[in-house]
């Protein structure tokens, strides 16, 4: 074990963790919007609308994230007419390609998590609200949405951790996140064990933080 290498690599990997966190937070925020939108569409009674929403989640949950990144980054980059449109300003940047892929992916999972949370709300709660003469809109905002968010916290916590690990794929489209920098160090030192152990440790630490944050929120908003 080359401990000196680990010590000199640590600051480089930690500054790369900033890129990882940026990718993660941007994708989660956009993904949450997408997730909410598609969860609502899934619950719509119009068959075209809910089938469309179902198709989206089926497509993005049924294919590997790596393939999705490759299609968005390398695939779309090969379409010539696309390169002359304004879309190319965004798609030219590996950073945005990664965020688009991550957001669409986590959006699909988030929509499923939220949908099932909405569906598990006991009809009794809504009926109780109605019997008190509360309007449908208020029931949605003050009862359904808060209960659904609380219900989905454990599953969404898992999704955040999965997505955090998924960001390591950003290194395949040239981004220098934790994994990208680790690979770069290995390519000149040829010591994968030390460097990847360290990178794994940083990911584990991030998981630890996210896990505890979610646990805290679960406790804070528990029904008991």
């Amino acid at each position, binding site marked *: 074990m080359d401990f000196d290498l680990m010590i000199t690599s640590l600051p480089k990997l930690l500054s790369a963790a900033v890129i990882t966190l940026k990718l993660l937070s941007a994708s989660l925020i956009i993904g949450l919007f997408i997730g909410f939108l598609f969860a609502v569409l899934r619950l719509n009674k119009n068959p075209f609308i809910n089938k469309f929403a179902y198709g989206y989640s089926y497509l993005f949950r049924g294919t590997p994230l790596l393939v999705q990144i490759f299609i968005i980054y*390398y695939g779309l980059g090969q379409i010539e007419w696309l390169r002359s449109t304004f879309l190319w300003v965004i798609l030219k940047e590996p950073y945005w390609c990664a965020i688009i892929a991550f957001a669409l992916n986590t959006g699909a999972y988030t929509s499923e998590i939220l949908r099932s949370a909405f569906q598990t709300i006991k009809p009794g709660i809504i009926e109780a609200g109605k019997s008190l003469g509360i309007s449908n809109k208020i029931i949605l905002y003050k009862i359904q949405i808060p209960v659904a968010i609380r219900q989905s916290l454990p599953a969404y916590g898992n999704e955040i951790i999965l997505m955090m690990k998924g960001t390591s794929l950003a290194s395949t489209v*040239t981004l220098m996140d934790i994994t990208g920098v680790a690979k*770069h160090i290995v*390519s000149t030192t*040829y*010591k*994968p064990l030390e460097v990847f152990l360290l990178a794994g440790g940083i990911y584990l630490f991030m998981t630890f933080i996210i896990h505890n944050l979610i646990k805290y929120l679960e406790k804070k908003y528990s029904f008991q």
Partner: protein
Amino acid sequence: MNIFKKTILTVLASLLIIGNVYASDKIRIGTEGAYPPWNSKDASGKLIGFEVELAYSLCRYIGRQCEVVEQDWDGMIPALQMRKFDAIMAGMSITDERKKVITFSQGYADEVAALAVMKGSSLEGMNTPVGISLSKPSSDAKKALKTITKALAGKTVCTQTGTIHQNFLESGDVGKVNVRTYKTQDEVNLDLTSGRCDVALAAAVAFTDYAEKSGKSVVLVGPTFSGGAFGNGVGVGLRQASQLGGTLGVRDAELLNAFNKAIDQARKDGVISRLAIKHFGFDASM
């Protein structure tokens, strides 16, 4: 439960088979299979190219059976050290940096590097000599490096991870360059044509081969590079015998000897030249 037992038996059986392969007397040679015309794969996934054919030729001279196996470029040297195979033939240039961790046979072929752009790029028509050597740079070479430094400023330069080309771009010889690194040369080529890369650096033949096969208008600009950070030709990468004394260490030392002799003979018989002309279109043997 039955299926469970069957699975375990199958796994054990396949482990035994794999174990046998390792124990056999074959020389296992690692290559990338993604750097044409040095080494690549055909449509059926079979390894082909200059080095794959040369590997089998060299093994005939050594008088032992060979197996060429595939390994991603970024894990090539660690895989050699972990004994996943015994030798590297993957367009790997002999450099001082690599010599710190592995050893090389004598060189079998020469590789020159070059910058490439898409036709119509502002970098076309750079006024430099045809080729420059960085081992003892002449005044012309130094002037050329200055011209290149100016041309590359503010441009995105793409190259493969863990290559002499990346080392050169990060060495400061051409100033501070915005380098983007890729896992394979294929991906570099894709992003050069898409326009995400303004310019790319690799073995000159990697670009000419791509331009020819894809029909894309990729053109070389500036001088060809050799020497210095670009190393001294391409050789067979082997484990350093000192790393592991004992029988294994002795075997590694013998292998180095065997490859050196085989390369001598193959050169004398014109095998290397013939294969180089077949795959590169010119005699790149050394």
